[in-house]
């Protein structure tokens, strides 16, 4: 297990921010942490990076406890936490060199240049950060996280401030890091469509509690039927085990509607429409936090 969050809890001034959160992330997995503002994502990340001390629980990265073996645990971690902040009066290169020096490794110029090229900042790296756009700061943040060759990458809102092309590049880069370097990635994002495209598993935090953790797949377990006569048609749907959910009907996974349509026709019921309602991560997220 690359990352293990074990019963993490944290309160601020008596108000619980994170309550008993446990997550396991395997090596090479891309894991998404979702939640509204104030749901506890940043507090969880803060505890994972040793910036906040948990009231209860512990975080392990690569088998090392962040709370007790900080250097070993964070030595395997690259992170962008919140909006990356830099020294505006220094160049991107000087900023990069400074943050990398804190990793304790003697990193060659070639490796720094490689990271700069990977995030597409080569031409502007010697400019002062003051002149950087938000997206460029985000890229510089990613470069400083990648230079020490971490095994685990923690990205808090990596798409924040990026244009559509930048978002696409970021997605491609994260996939490359996972596929080529077997890097484990944990990310949070308000762009649920990005999480949907990138993540193997997600966890949803709501008011500090984890309301879902697991594999999420785009599914079509909801179906819409237009039948005539309605009453007889709906009675038959109930009879075969479908559950009414608003205007839709909840069906089991891998539901095949063909036999049902044949039966409806046989019973003299006109079938005007049978449409799967695709549930997006956004729908799923909304449901999860309202449960």
């Amino acid at each position, binding site marked *: 297990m690359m990352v293990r969050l074990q019963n993490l809890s944290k309160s*601020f001034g008596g108000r619980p921010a994170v309550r008993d959160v446990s997550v396991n992330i395997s090596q090479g997995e891309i894991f998404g942490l979702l939640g509204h503002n104030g749901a506890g994502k*940043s*507090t969880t990340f*803060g505890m994972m*990076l*040793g*910036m*906040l*001390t948990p009231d209860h629980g512990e975080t392990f990265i690569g088998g090392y406890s962040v709370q007790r073996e*900080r*250097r*070993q*645990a*964070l*030595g395997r*971690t690259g*992170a962008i*936490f*919140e*909006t*990356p*902040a*830099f*020294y505006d*009066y*220094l160049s991107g290169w*000087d900023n990069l*060199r*400074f*943050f990398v*020096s*804190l*990793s*304790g490794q*003697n990193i060659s110029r070639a490796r720094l240049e490689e990271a700069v090229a990977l995030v597409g900042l080569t031409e502007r790296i010697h400019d002062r950060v003051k002149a950087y756009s938000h997206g460029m700061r985000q890229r510089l*943040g990613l470069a*400083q*996280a990648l230079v020490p060759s971490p095994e685990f990458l923690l990205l808090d809102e990596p798409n924040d401030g990026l244009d559509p092309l930048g978002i696409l590049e970021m997605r491609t880069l994260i996939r490359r890091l996972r596929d080529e370097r077997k890097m484990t990635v944990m990310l949070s994002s308000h762009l649920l469509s990005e999480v949907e495209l990138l993540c193997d598993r997600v966890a949803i935090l709501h008011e500090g509690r984890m309301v879902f953790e697991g594999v999420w797949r785009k599914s079509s377990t909801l179906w819409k039927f237009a039948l005539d006569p309605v009453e007889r048609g709906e009675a038959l749907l109930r009879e075969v085990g479908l559950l009414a959910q608003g205007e839709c009907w909840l069906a089991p996974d891998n539901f095949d509607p063909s036999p049902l349509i044949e039966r409806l026709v046989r019973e003299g019921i006109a079938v005007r429409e049978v449409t799967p309602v695709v549930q997006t991560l956004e729908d799923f997220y909304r449901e999860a936090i309202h449960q």
Partner: protein
Amino acid sequence: MSTFFRQLRGELQKLFFRNRTYIGFGAFLGAEIIILALLRLPRVQRGFAKLLTGAGYSPEEYLSGLTLGLTITLSTVLLLGALFLALVAGDIVSKEVEDGTLRMMLCRPVTRGRILVLKYVTCAIYTLALTFFIALTALATGYVYAGRGGLFLYAPLEEIFAVYAEGPGLVRYFLAIPFLSLSLLTISSIGFFFSCLRMKPAAATIVTLSILFVDMVLKNTPFFGAIREWFLTARMSTWVVAFESRIPWEILLENYAWLIALDVTLFTLAWAVFSTRDFKA
């Protein structure tokens, strides 16, 4: 280069590449020029000459660059030094917390203790650089203005009246500067301590200055004359005794041991607070 020195180079680069760092250097140069301009006033020159003649010394010999350099240093260092050292030291941690750059540092596999040591050493180097800058520029402007000659010092509060030929005077001058640096390091230590607490950079600077100014006012209040040596700024003024004809090493050692112990205590308290503190966005 070892990891520590690479990291220290980065910290120094952060400090010395920042325009604000040089306000102190610029202010001292400005103050030196103003003092020299005031010294051109006949009334001031007469007062200086009267003091020397009254003690039986020739103003031509002792109204020199060396005397002016020391006079400038004495009159500017405590107030302006306090201001600019408190500004830099008060910023050193709290500004990074405010700007969010400390979060970036804390994401790294570096202990909080190491971060604090790097920052404190940076403060100490800045203190040393500023002190030597003041001492050397004061001496240089003094020499340009008044040329060569002996050293004359009258410090009534410390009860020192000293007169030296140029050579021994320069030796005493450069002997006193490291002690002055140590005195000023106390200001940096206080600023550093408050910078590590949960407060804004400006608040850390203001609290540091307030402590020093209150201490200075109390020290100069006649009622407290009997306990004058208890005050922080009195101990910080000990560097001047390096100009006494027989240097009272026991007083120097006692007071600087006291100041160093205070620096160590402040650093330890800062570390205790910083290492257990939560850093929220």
